[in-house]
Each structure stands twice: as structure tokens, then as C-alpha cells.
């Protein structure tokens, strides 16, 4: 699946929920399921510090694709991170750098990217794109 197709899949998945509480319950479940980042990668270097919660992001280039792992101390942030990782991880640096991210808006979570939330999520998205650009330059 392309990054675009994965995003469409998530949008469809979330269309099942009318209620905010159901949406959050699903995100919390995703947060609990997200495989933890390896402890050795939970370094200050990989830390994206927000006002509200902390996010760690690690990236590796394996066989030409970028593999992301991440974690957060807040479960809702972690659930959204899980979705972002599902979308981007395992794709080529070129595809990651070039594909537009639209699913967060479409499932109504855009407020989590607003500066008032300061939860590190917006910084994490920028960091993902930066990794992609950096890996592209290396290839």
C-alpha cells in the first residue's frame, strides 16, 4: 500500500465513529498497542519536548525504506503517533518526503496539530519529513 492508500484506509476506519468518546477510545487502544520504542533509543537526542507531553522518535534506513519507532508519555498522543507511524513507516525516503499528510485533518484530529496543544506531534511530523529528506540525500 502507498502512503496515500494507508491514509485513506484510516479515514475509512474512523468514519465508523460518530461520537468523540468512541474516537478517543479507539485512539487509546491504538496507543496501548503501539510497540514501544527500544529503551536505548529513548534518548534526549530523540526527544521532542512539548509543553504538554513528550514524544520520542527514532528512524532507521533498512533496505532502502525508513523504519520509524516512537513513544509518548501521553496515551492519546501515543495513539495518534501510532497512526502516523503506520502511515509512514516502511516507505522510501522519497515517498515520505513527497506525500502530503491529510488523514489527521480528515478524521477531525487537526486540533492536535495546533500550536496551543504543544504536544510535540507537530514537531514530530516535521522531524519525520526531515529524516526522509536526510536519508534521501544519503542514498
Amino acid at each position, binding site marked *: 500500500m502507498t502512503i496515500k492508500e494507508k491514509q485513506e484506509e484510516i479515514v475509512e476506519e474512523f468514519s465508523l465513529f460518530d461520537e468523540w*468518546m468512541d474516537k478517543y477510545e479507539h485512539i487509546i487502544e491504538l496507543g496501548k498497542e503501539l510497540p514501544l520504542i527500544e529503551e536505548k533509543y529513548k534518548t534526549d537526542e530523540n526527544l521532542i519536548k512539548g509543553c*504538554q507531553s*513528550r514524544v520520542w522518535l527514532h528512524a532507521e534506513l533498512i533496505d532502502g525504506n525508513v523504519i520509524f519507532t516512537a513513544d509518548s508519555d*501521553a496515551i492519546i498522543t501515543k495513539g495518534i503517533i501510532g497512526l502516523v507511524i503506520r502511515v509512514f513507516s516502511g516507505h522510501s525516503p522519497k515517498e515520505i518526503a513527497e506525500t502530503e499528510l491529510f488523514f489527521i485533518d480528515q478524521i477531525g484530529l487537526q486540533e492536535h496539530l495546533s500550536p496551543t496543544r504543544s504536544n510535540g506531534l507537530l514537531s514530530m511530523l516535521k522531524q519525520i519529513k526531515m529524516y526522509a529528506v536526510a536519508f534521501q540525500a544519503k542514498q
Partner: protein
Amino acid sequence: MIKEKNILNINKIRDDFPILKREVNGKPLVYFDNGATSQKPQLVIDVINKYYTFENSNIHRGIHTLSQEATNAYEVARKKVQRFVNAQHEHEIIFTKGTTDSINLVAASFGKKHLKKGDEIIISNMEHHSNIVPWQMICEEKEAVLKVIPINDKGELLMDEFKKLLSPKTKFVSITHVSNTLGTINPVKEIIKLAKEAGALVLIDGAQAVPHTKIDVQDLGCDFYAFSGHKMFGPTGVGILYGKEAILNDLPPYQGGGDMIKTVTFEKTTYNELPHKFEAGTPNIVGGIGLGVAIDYMNSIGLDKIEAYEHELLTYATEQIKQIEGVRIVGEAAKKASVLSFVVDGTHPSDIGMIIDKLGVAIRTGHHCTEPLMNRLNVPGTARASFAFYNTFEEIDIFIAALKRAVTMLK
């Protein structure tokens, strides 16, 4: 259940605040973020509208009628503030942008003239960043030393440690009246007395105290008292610095510009008298006028009643929240204003805040601009409900129900 529930005519009061009628995420708004900013009564909203519709003009300079009317309105507001905090003179009331601006003014002007290498300034472990960073900045510049009064686990200042920190080197003591994060009401009168005995000047950060309790700066004996309009039902962008006349006269101006000068030549400028010496540039005129109206409004309800009612709210909320398993209250000082900070075992404060927001309840989560305090208490942040006199016991019930639901989801 609560015998003093009817201290205030709560329905009438709520009618005065139009925003309280709105819905958020399809639920009636429960606004418990008053520590961050308070809502505005219709009277304040109306005066802002009226000012720009009928009265707008610049103050202190104009010869025409409109300017004189605006100047009068602004200066009447200054008198209202003077009476509100019982300052001796109205020119001891300086209009600023807010508490942060007030503290920066004092730190910069005092530091510039009086601070020398090795001098000491005392703050506390529970200060807001705005009562830490301005002092750090001037200490760095002047090679002075910042000392910090420690706290106990309940969130109370260790007064014996404060006494030990005081010495002939102490030049300034700057302490919060009420902790924005914990609600602790500090023994400021005693702090001021001890600091004065040591020969230091004292500033009290009153941002969180002024909305809840009667302030008398002469009785307190402080040299400076700083607070914000927007936390006391007035507009944003206006605040107050109270300072004793002799001390304000001694300090150099903070910013240069219009309104703060007597005469200007390229060789030498002489400065205006108090309060204008510290009010460079066109001020937030309508902000000042709106603050005056907010003070009228608070007086019409009565600060004694406000304080008594909010105490009931805090007591009720504290009792209720303690019944939720895993909740730990952060800040259990013997004397507290209406601030309820807490953490829930196994959950992150921001998750709690996000979920109950969808249920219509607005609280604050995070470090509340008190990172050193969070480090001291060893928490990443807290969730904080802070109450105003327009809040109700029923709203606390809604909040508690929302919190229970959030905790169930998150565990």
C-alpha cells in the same frame, strides 16, 4: 449538604457572563480554567464596545473634547485600582501590559540602578516563570545571585529556610501571593516583614490572589504588588504595578518614548512624574477602563462573599475528587485559594484534559509555567481545575463525572 451554598445569587451572576451560556463540543461549557484567565461580565464587554463606538481618542495629549473624556475615563480607572488595593496615592498605580510586564519593569529598573556583583535576590520554588526569568536575566547581567526558598511536600514555603537565606547581601525578595499551580496562599505579610528587617525590597506577585481576596498594600507593607486585569474579569493586555511613591521615584524609567517625558532635546531628556514616567507610549486605554469596570463589578458582589463562596467550592471539589481511585491532589497547603491540581495514577494529565474537554469541561493541564515546581514535586505536569465565583456545585458534579469517565477509559 452545603449550608453556605447560597452566599451568592449565583443564577443572577451567571447571567452577567454571556459566555457561560455557550456549548462546547455539544455540551454545556463548564469553565474551570479561571487560573489561566477569567471570563468577562457583560458590563466589561459593553464598556469596550462603547469606548470604540463613542469615545475613542488618544489620552493625555489632546486638546479636544474626546481626548479629555478618554483621559478622564482612564484616570478614573486608575483611582478605582488605587482604592481597590488601598494604595496611598493614585500615582503609585502604574498601568502595564500585565503581571509579567510589571515584574520585568521592576527587575530591569531596580537591577539597573541598585544591583551589584554578589548581591542576592530571593524567590521561591513555586514561582511562575514570569517571576523567575526576569530575575535570572538581571542576575546574569549584574553577576548577582538568585536564591530559592524551598517548599515542603504539601506545597508550603519553608519559612525557616527563608530566614536562613536572608542576609545583608539580600537586595530583593519577589514572591507569589497565591501559587497558580498549587493554590497555596503564602504568608506574605510575614515574608514582607522579614525581608524589610533584612533591608531588602519586596515585590508580591498577586496575579492569582487579586481575583479571590481583598488586597491592602498598605497593610501588607510591600514595596511592589503586581497583577493582571484579565484574571480579575477585565480585558487582556492590561495589568498593574503598585509601587511605593518614594521607591518608584528612585527607580530609572523602564522604557523610553512618548508620555513618559517632560522635555526632550538631543542633549538631555527629563522624565515625567509618576505614574507617567513608567508608562511610555499610548497605553491600552480601553483595557484600563475595562479593568475599572471589572473592579466595580467585583465590588458590587463583595470580595468577602467571593472568597467565602469559592472556599466552599474548593472544599466540595476536594471532597469529591478524593473519592476517585488513583487521584492524588498536588498541593495540600493548609491555606489554599480555589485551585485544585491533581494527577491520576497511570494516566497523563494531557489525556485527562483532552477527554473531559470533549465532555464540555475546560481545565488546564501541563506544567503551568512552573517547571522548577514540577521537578521539585516529581510530576511531569498536573491537571488543574481553578474556580471563580460564577462556578457552581453542579458544575463540579459534571466535572467529577467527566473525570471518572476519562479515568475509566485511560486505565
